[in-house]
């Protein structure tokens, strides 16, 4: 297996994009990434597209072919593949692209993630989002996707003494980071009170504990490391790529305060990279709900189990802390177009490792990590990147 580098990145702003449809959003990010890599279309060997549910959001399946077509790549008849793992669709698409290049099958691939969530109303969007969980044995009985995470939060509070304020602080921090990101859906700082007093969604989580519905796309260009410097002075090495699965239903786990799939994927990734959590300066984790970030920073090994809340209020995951988590604003402030998120996380890490993150720049960022989650942790992809 040979080394793989990221030689180009691109993304759209995330938010409610009324003027742009799925096709426009999808190719915008891809074209930006190809431009960033200064590639010619003929040099692209394959396309991988992460998307959770275009079939239900816009009644369109077969979206890899669609993106290949509208980005002009279908002219060259390149292989185009759509990958789905609910919220982990983007991260998983990246992993498939990585495996294709690492194995020697392809030299240069484009990996994109895109989701158009606002062409349906909120009620339908909520139902589609819930299909990431166990439809028959969780959702049918009234467990919404936020409710499942709320039950994780309540159990975490019960088992570890984590407080409501600690959980809410995740949102405050990520909004602070988002205010520094011109591509974020929400660029306004908020205070703790706003989070605590927000309309309840599923107690103890309220509106400000939950990532929004968003439209958006992100893309990266992967290239074998040995050819990367032909295209860029700042190739970013994929130091590790790991993936793990777990039971679909949350109630089938033995402990819901941990995403075992995160722990397994992280262990494999750190082993592949020859690194430890303390070596990571910057991380993008899957905060579709505030409690999810608390679990993530514990399960990835940044903090002991049960201390994620304390670490957050102590500022250890803010810029300037022990590890800067979600400098993009995270899913909460940056936005969460489901299939795009996993790729957008990597785009942010690349900005950081290239030293091009502007006001969000973490000084001395050398190793970065992205954690992308599907459902309530049934799929987790962990990627570790290095400034080459």
């Amino acid at each position, binding site marked *: 297996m040979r080394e793989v580098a990221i030689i180009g990145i691109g993304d759209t702003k995330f938010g409610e994009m009324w003027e742009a449809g799925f096709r426009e959003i999808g190719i915008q990010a891809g074209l930006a990434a190809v431009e960033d890599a200064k590639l010619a279309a003929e040099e692209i060997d394959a396309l991988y597209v992460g998307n959770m549910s275009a079939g239900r959001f816009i009644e369109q399946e077969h979206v890899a072919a669609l993106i290949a077509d509208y980005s002009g790549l279908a002219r060259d008849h390149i292989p185009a593949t759509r990958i789905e793992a609910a919220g982990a669709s983007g991260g998983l698409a990246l992993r498939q692209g990585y495996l294709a290049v690492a194995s020697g099958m392809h030299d240069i691939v484009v990996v994109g993630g895109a989701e158009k969530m606002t062409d*349906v*109303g*909120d*009620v*339908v969007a909520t139902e589609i989002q819930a299909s990431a969980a166990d439809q028959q044995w969780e959702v049918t009985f009234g467990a919404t996707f936020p409710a499942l995470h709320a039950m994780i939060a309540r159990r975490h509070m019960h088992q570890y003494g984590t407080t409501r304020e600690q959980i809410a602080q995740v949102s405050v921090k990520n909004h602070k980071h988002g205010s520094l990101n011109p591509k974020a859906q929400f660029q306004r700082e908020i205070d703790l009170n706003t989070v605590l007093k927000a309309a309840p969604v599923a107690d103890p989580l309220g509106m400000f504990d939950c990532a929004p519905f968003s439209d958006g796309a992100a893309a990266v260009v992967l290239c074998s490391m040995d050819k990367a410097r032909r295209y860029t002075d700042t190739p970013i090495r994929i130091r590790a790529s790991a993936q793990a699965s777990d039971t679909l239903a949350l109630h089938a786990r033995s402990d819901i305060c941990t995403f075992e799939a995160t722990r397994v994927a992280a262990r494999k990734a750190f082993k592949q990279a020859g690194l430890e959590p303390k070596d990571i300066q910057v991380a993008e984790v899957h905060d579709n709900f505030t409690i999810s970030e608390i679990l993530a920073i514990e399960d990835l090994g940044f903090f002991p189990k049960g201390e994620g809340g304390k670490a957050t209020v102590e500022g250890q995951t803010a810029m300037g802390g022990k590890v800067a988590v979600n400098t993009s604003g995270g899913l909460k402030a940056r936005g969460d177009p489901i299939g795009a998120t996993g790729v957008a996380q990597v785009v942010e890490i690349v900005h950081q490792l290239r030293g091009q993150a502007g006001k969000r720049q973490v000084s001395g960022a050398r190793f970065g990590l992205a954690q992308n989650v599907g459902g309530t942790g049934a799929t987790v992809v962990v990627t570790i990147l290095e400034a080459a």
Partner: protein
Amino acid sequence: MEVGIVSYGAYVPRYRITPQEIGRVWGSDGEMMSKGLQIFSKSVPQSDEDVITISVEAARAMMRRCDVDPMDIGAVYVGSESHPYAVKPSGTIVAEAIGCSTEITMADLEFACKAGTAGMQICMGLVGSGMVKYGVAIGADTSQGAPGDPLEYSASAGGAAYLIGSRDIIAAINHTASFTTDTPDFWRREGQDYPSHGGRFTGEPAYFKHVTAGGKLILKNMGTKPDQYKYAVFHQPNGKFPQRVAKMLGFTDQQIEVGLLTPQIGNTYSGAVPLGLAAVLDVADPGDRIFVVAYGSGAGADGFDISVTENMARYDRSKAPLVRQLVEDKRFLDYATYAKFRGKIRIQEANS
């Protein structure tokens, strides 16, 4: 062959609303309605309850109290005027939910408030003829009265289930007889949300005529007098009618007291007599004799002469809630919440 009740179970939803609260909304004197009807509160089902869930609760309670194998049940009848489906029986879901085999005969019944007792009579015939070993008869309702109509003060929800058989019976049904005529006192047309009624026509030519005729038929056929019965259960559309009809037949207030539930839980329609009888069976002793007359508008009365057997001493009622416990487990609602539970507020299907 002696035929009778092998086991029984009851269920009443826990929510209540008072006539005063209903009257407050409709500009009527709820206090006066309450006194006039002798109804002090009525039961209200949650929006996730219906005749099927009520029947299943009552039937499961019935099965918990005995050790009959549900695979030996040969017939299931659910009598109601508020079946969830107009076409598709409630009883098949109940039968599966209590573990019956596929070898059962089943049909839903309707005869206003006496569909449950009609089911008991059918089961008696099937058991007595040897066609089935055990039959289940359930009377349950979640009836509604039109908002603002007098019926709204009384129409409530609840039900009881009876396992009819010929072995280990706790109460023998010595005799049953019915009095039936075509009398349009109360009805609901297909497609209508709420029933209609003939006002005071529902009294003398309907309820009283049929209940007294049915009652007299039982007394005549059995050669008995009212004072030979420890308990009497009459259909109870309000708290007053059963008191009056009891006197007309020669029964006392003490005899009807235990089986008179309407003042606390309202008129549970097809569940009314089955629940009243269950309340009596909750306290009855071996040797006690029970007089029962159910009434269904349209119209008809089903009478029963029942004797509690020695087996009642070995029957463990504690495996399921007593009627008294169900009546006492209550939470009061305001009219708006009640209207929401009962679907009286129309919600448009969200399509986005």
